[in-house]
């Protein structure tokens, strides 16, 4: 009887170890498969042209992916600009100002925001925000502004959750110290709580950046899908993700066009790896201080 217990103890240890190893294996496989396919682009395409040429016309042999990098970055920055302050304000509100019942309402709201599928965000953007933008600013309506607005809502829960936890975890004595000196609540928040919580808030913002940068469907539905450098806030352009999803289906595997799309995907992976390293660096710096 005991023997059986020992055997299953051993077996479980190995199986659990193998599960953990499988996770590592998966990410390595992704890096290798996508990276290899992507880097093969440079067998046919000049790397400099890929990264710095604005001309994307694959049938004519032009593989300048600059517009997509610029499009992704612009849309993401707009999202952070709009969603960042709002998310942070919500976080402060939930952590320090709001009464308990309101906080639980906000929590549920945050969960609902997370629960809404990105294609539904895209659909709303397409049917509500794009017409609104067209009427307000003229032009096509599609473009980085609407994409940024939709992304701002999508990253709201990320920023709010991380920032609220960060503010809440600031040690009580710090806060009481400030209040005890006669500081107002806002002075305490601004002067004590936010600086103390800054590393983690920053980490939350970076996570939000990574999320927005990699978002595909919602962006593709409102960006206009025109492969050109961002011409303005409300004119069609394209991003890395939207261009991949639009064109992947029409390119034969192994063609330079197909590989160029994979190279863009590899760019997305590299970006997200950099982001998690950045998060780690920011968080560690916060601890060391």
């Amino acid at each position, binding site marked *: 009887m005991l023997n059986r217990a020992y055997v299953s103890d051993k077996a479980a240890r190995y199986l659990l170890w193998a599960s953990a190893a499988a996770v590592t294996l998966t990410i390595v496989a*992704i890096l290798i498969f996508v990276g290899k396919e992507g880097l093969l682009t440079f067998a046919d395409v000049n790397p400099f042209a890929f990264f710095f040429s604005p001309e994307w016309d694959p049938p004519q042999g032009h593989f300048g992916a600059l517009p997509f990098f610029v499009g992704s970055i612009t849309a993401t920055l707009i999202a952070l600009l709009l969603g960042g302050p709002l998310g942070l304000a919500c976080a402060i509100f939930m952590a320090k100002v709001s009464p308990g019942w309101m906080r639980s309402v906000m929590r549920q709201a945050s969960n*609902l925001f997370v629960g809404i599928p990105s294609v539904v965000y895209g659909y709303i953007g397409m049917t509500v925000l794009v017409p609104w933008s067209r009427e307000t600013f003229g032009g096509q309506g599609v473009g980085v502004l609407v994409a940024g607005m939709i992304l701002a809502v999508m990253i709201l829960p990320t920023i709010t959750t991380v920032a609220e936890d960060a503010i809440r975890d600031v040690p009580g004595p710090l806060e009481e110290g400030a209040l005890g000196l006669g500081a107002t609540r806002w002075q305490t928040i601004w002067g004590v709580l936010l600086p103390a919580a800054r590393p983690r808030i920053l980490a939350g913002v970076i996570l939000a950046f990574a999320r927005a940068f990699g978002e595909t469907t919602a962006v593709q539905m409102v960006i206009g899908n025109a492969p050109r450098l961002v011409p303005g806030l409300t004119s069609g352009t394209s991003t890395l993700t939207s261009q991949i999803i639009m064109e992947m289906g029409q390119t034969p595997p192994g063609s330079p066009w197909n590989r160029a799309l994979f190279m863009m995907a590899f760019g997305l992976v590299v970006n997200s790896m950099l982001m998690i390293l950045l998060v780690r660096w920011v968080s560690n710096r916060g601890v060391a201080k």
Partner: protein
Amino acid sequence: MSRARVFDRLATLLLWAAGLGTLVILAAFLIRILGQGLPYITWDFLTTRSQAMKAGGGVGSQLFNTFYLTGLSLLFSLPIGVGAGVYMAEYAKPGRFTDLVRLSVEALASVPSIVLGLFGMILFVNTMGWGFTIIGGALTLSLLNLPTLVRVTEETMRSVPAIYREGSLALGATRWQTVSKAVLPSALPGILTGVTLVAGRAIGETAILIYTAGVTASRHMGDLNLFNAGETLAVRIWYVKSEGLVPDADAIAAGTSALLLIVVLVFNLALALPLYLWQKKRMGR
């Protein structure tokens, strides 16, 4: 009133505005989605198959595929995800391997879903030569579930008080008996919450599925063939709005969006409620 006090009042006002504003945005979203979509949700819409060119098609197959793919993806990812989480919480010793796994989990969680989709496409559609299949879609989808499951399992296992482990080990239980009989049951509610989270995301996922499960669905309702293409509700919305040829694309998108939202909400409730009751019972009233 002093300047500081004025600022304090103003800030409080603005913070309230931010909180309420967020709720208004959410309410507007929900009202818009449900208001536009609910009228289209009829029995026919839910049960008939979709049309490629003509108006009047339903989303029956897509509804089925949504659950089928989500269920399969959980089937694939749960053992590995929970296993890896248990390993990290109960067995891992500080060291290179543990650091590597932790970094891998974070990395996998941050990979954009479109990239996972392309990876699945290389692996299952091209290399295995399956084409667009439900099994390929589900396997790729499980990569999305994996990091969340690992993280949630690890966190929940860690939050189980050490005294349970000690109590069990002191009775002469092996490590695995302790983990499986004393710790896992206590961690189960937390893990199930993680499963809801993961399932909710899987139900709404598009980018992963477009190039793995494809944008067509079987003509037969409830077709279990794993090697059929398997368009889901979310993919259907995307497809009709960006590439589809059906004349009633707007109606289908509106109805499907509302349906998808309801499915996600009901799913969350359906799992949350029994969980709550079970936990209450376990705690001995």
